[in-house]
């Protein structure tokens, strides 16, 4: 039996779209727990795209700050 589950990477992207307080907290936790297995470049690409679509350019540096906080 095959079960499809979201990868931590996908969850980070999804939560970067929602970007509520609890989503930022979840991103921190995901990066802490799965940071070494997350393709950050892929996540960054998506976040740049989302930031553009949503007219929220501040999302990119805010995400970077979260990454730095965890590392």
């Amino acid at each position, binding site marked *: 039996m095959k079960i499809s589950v979201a990868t931590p990477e996908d969850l980070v992207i999804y939560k970067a*779209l*929602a*970007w*509520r307080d609890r989503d930022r907290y979840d991103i921190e936790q995901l990066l802490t727990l799965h940071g070494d297995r997350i393709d950050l470049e892929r996540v960054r690409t998506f976040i740049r795209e*989302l930031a553009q*679509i*949503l007219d929220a350019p501040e999302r990119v540096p805010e995400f970077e700050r979260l990454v730095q906080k965890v590392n």
Partner: protein
Amino acid sequence: MAATPDHRPARGLSSTSSMAPRSGLFAEGSAGTHEGTELLLVGRLQQWDAVWRVGRVGTGACRGSCYAPIMARKDPPSLPENTEGVRRMVAGWQAVEGLEREERRQAGPDAMAVRGALELMDLFGALHGWPPPENEARRRDSELVRSRWVRVRSFYQAHGQAAQQKNP
């Protein structure tokens, strides 16, 4: 349960059983039967001296509220000086633990939790009605997320359609 005048629980059966670990070193029937165990036991007891300094009145269902915050005494801890004393003390803990387990078994495993939940519902009912009203801030948050999601989805849908039109 009787407490000594300095609020330190009496040793033996009236000890702080609920503070004792529920398994491992203090598991029933394993108290101090080996030299190494005894050493560990004494070490653990020293670590728990702070626990001894908190007075406790009552047993069984009376938890939390029965632990009075008593100021710590400045004298050194008075632990049993021989292994036999330690054994007796641990046997006392275990006996009280057994009694408390029996009390809990008779009360039902979740009786207190269920009662607490019902009391909370009553309190909510009295204050706001039950179920509680939707949290306005959370509702706004969810709407905002939904609108972001719709915006992103429509962008990708339009983008995908445009790509299909370019490359049929």
